[in-house]
């Protein structure tokens, strides 16, 4: 039986970190974003943005998740889980 080899080019952690940062920055105005890889497919995200002001914790996380859903969807998604998400206001 052949072992499946994941495409390292697409799921390279450094590239995924960059993708995550780009998506979030594009989706949330003036967001300051920092993403770190925490293991294969696992990431930690910290976002600071004025847009979070007055929102509940769930609504803040929805803003971030909404920006990165496509990276978390389907089989072989580059992002398996966000282990930690911090949503701060400046």
């Amino acid at each position, binding site marked *: 039986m052949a072992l499946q080899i994941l495409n390292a080019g697409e799921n390279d952690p450094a590239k995924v970190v960059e993708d995550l940062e780009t998506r979030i920055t594009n989706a949330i105005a003036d967001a300051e974003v920092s993403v770190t890889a925490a293991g294969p497919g696992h990431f930690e995200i910290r976002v600071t943005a004025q847009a979070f002001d007055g929102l509940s914790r769930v609504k803040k996380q*929805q803003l971030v998740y*909404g920006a990165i859903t496509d990276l978390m969807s389907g089989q072989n998604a580059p*992002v398996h*889980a*966000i282990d930690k998400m911090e949503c701060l206001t400046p």
Partner: protein
Amino acid sequence: MSLDEAAREAIGNLISGHEVTLFMKGTRQQPQCGFSNTVIQILDSLVTDYQTVDVLADQKLREDIKTYSSWPTIPQLYVGGEFIGGCDIIQELFQNGELAEALGVELPEPGTLAIEISDRAAEQLRAANEQQGGPGRALHLSIDARFQANLFLGPVDGNELVVEANGIELRLDRMSASRAAGLSMDVVDTPQGPGFKIENPNAPQARIGQLSVQGLKALIDTGERFELMDVRTIAERETAHIEGSTLMDDAEASRLEALPKDTRIVFHCHHGPRSQQAAEHFAALGFTNVHNVVGGIDAWSNEIDPSVPKY
């Protein structure tokens, strides 16, 4: 990734069709993942009536709902059309009481709850506490959303309401406390030995219609549509059955549960007790038109149709 209009509308309709909707893996009866199961346990302790949607049965929905909610994981809970959160958040809101509030469950203020414990029950509880209690352990009373009571010795978590009656301290979690006002507890003798008997005035009076076999015959003769459920075993059914009845299995139970709550459902068994239990179960789920056939298929065979074998 964007969601096509049709998918967005379909999900919107699902959510607006019910006050409480849970997108989960598996069903309420058979959750297929630990996180979904945790949320089911929580919801069951708060409400009897809610809708679940199994995302494992629909690959497209499984991905679509993540985009719709901007939330990457299942389960997902909606209340009154609002996204509440996933498993972690639901657990947190359950602990701090906000979920009960969102679901419209009223919790009693500490000190306002009164229950009664008979002398004999107090004596038994005291003995149990002395034998099995210990530091950090105490008597608890829980009452689930179907008003099933449970007495147990367990660790004190500090969030319970403490109620004292007849010298006994009982701890109730907040949900149980909301269902316990005026409850009374006694010990009665049964063929299996003494047991606790708990009367709870808050339990909805299970209005089970008692239907004679003549009544059942008359109902069948009207030609009106109703559900006639046989709650016996497959072997019993092979021996004898009433024409027009359906054997109750898991699939049938799920089908019934999804029917309108005013659907007329008639249960029968061999002599009556099992069907009474089934009827009470459905009454507790909120069904308002449930009936039990008194005397069961045995009475049917004696009084209506002697061609049905007796066993």
